[in-house]
């Protein structure tokens, strides 16, 4: 009986692939997220740089404000098939460990965010930063990876809480954005520290460390509470 049960890793892979395959076939979430990110950048440009002001000093802030809002959109969409097509009911009757449901969801959100960042980071650099060096983009990529960890872990947990709520589309941003403020502060600080020729690596390291700590803390919170999320 036990021998027939797939390993923890194989179950995780199956769940993650299910989400990614579904997204690749429908492209419901990803296209909307990328377009939203581009539109949000335009809004920032016309709201703050309409008179030709140089926005390079706030480019990190623009990038992370855009990504935080885009993350809310992606996280909100991430549980939709589970609810609308009753996938969750099916998953809950299988003997899949409950932590895998959260981890696979976090993995999918991580992948969506990464896909958006592949477009958004170069765009912000082109639109707002003067004199960006290619090496800096790698450092900003590391910030994206660290920030995505925290955003996806917390996002998958909070999206679960909003799943069965009334007015969930409104509830999720209200729940998610205040907890996301530390990520926005640290990630935009780290991005700004290596943008446009200002190479303040000590500040960059401090912010990256903070992003790591943030991911670990919310990882622990999610680990301690996941059983109670899927209790029924």
């Amino acid at each position: 009986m036990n021998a027939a049960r797939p390993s923890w890793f194989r179950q995780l892979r199956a769940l993650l692939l299910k989400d990614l395959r579904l997204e690749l076939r429908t492209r419901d979430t990803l296209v909307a997220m990328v377009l939203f990110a581009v539109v949000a950048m335009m809004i920032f440009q016309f709201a703050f740089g309409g008179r030709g002001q140089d926005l390079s000093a706030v480019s990190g802030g623009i990038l992370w404000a855009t990504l935080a809002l885009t993350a809310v959109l992606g996280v909100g969409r991430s549980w939709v098939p589970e609810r609308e097509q009753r996938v969750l009911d099916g998953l809950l009757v299988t003997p899949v460990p409950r932590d895998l449901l959260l981890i696979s969801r976090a993995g999918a959100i991580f992948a969506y965010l990464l896909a958006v960042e592949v477009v958004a980071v170069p765009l912000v650099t082109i639109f707002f930063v003067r004199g960006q060096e290619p090496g800096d983009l790698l450092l900003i990529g590391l910030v994206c990876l660290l920030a995505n960890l925290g955003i996806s872990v917390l996002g998958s947990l909070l999206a679960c809480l909003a799943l069965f709520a009334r007015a969930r589309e409104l509830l999720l941003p209200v729940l998610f954005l205040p907890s996301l403020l530390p990520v926005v502060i640290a990630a935009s600080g780290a991005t700004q520290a290596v943008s446009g020729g200002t190479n303040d690596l000590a500040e960059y390291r401090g912010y990256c460390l903070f992003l790591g700590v943030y991911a670990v803390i919310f990882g622990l919170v999610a680990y301690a509470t996941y059983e109670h999320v899927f209790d029924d």
Partner: protein
Amino acid sequence: MTDTRSTRRLAITGVLTAILTAVACFGIFFVAPEDADQGIIQKIFYFHVSIALVGLVAFAVGAIYGIRYLRTRDAHLDDVSSIAIGIGLAFSVLVVITGSIWAKASWGTWWVWTDPRLVTFVIVLLLYAAYFVLRSSVEGELRLRYSAIYSIAAFASVPLSFYSVRVARSFVHPVVFTTGGANMSDAMLVWFLVSLAATVGVFLTILQLELIQRRADRAMRRVKMRLEAMA
């Protein structure tokens, strides 16, 4: 029996709190020395800091009872958690208002984004206001369970918010408590401790009052349901 005991406990706490608050107000305004730099406006410190500390403790109580609720599923623990968070939220509003008044007097402006503690309390306000939005959006047992989970996540966000705001801004807030001890005279410290005790009393009084009210509410709903079943 239990109701009588809780009512008596509430009466004792209420009376003690009233006495402590009166003594604290008298001491702060008539006995405690005036600050050499800031003058009379420094008196707001006794209220501002006490409310801030007790507010944070209220959120900690909310998270601890949230954890206890998840372990036992006893609705009474959820009552304590949600009431404590409600009081913490009200205290946070007061912290922001008193902080803003203090900022106007000290720095000449109602709001400064460079003060990490004040900014943190605004973030905390948003975090815990969302707690009540979540509570009102979910029904039944899920409401209790999800509120408990969120109370833990929100409490984890508090130090992270403070730290992130602090590293991002220059530090201009008057630092009264340092690792080397309290940076104020003994007379000031005594009256601060009295006002802190009074604020703890206010927290405990409201907590007990709300708990009794919720219990009465639940009892009344049970009676109503029984009457409806009989009719």
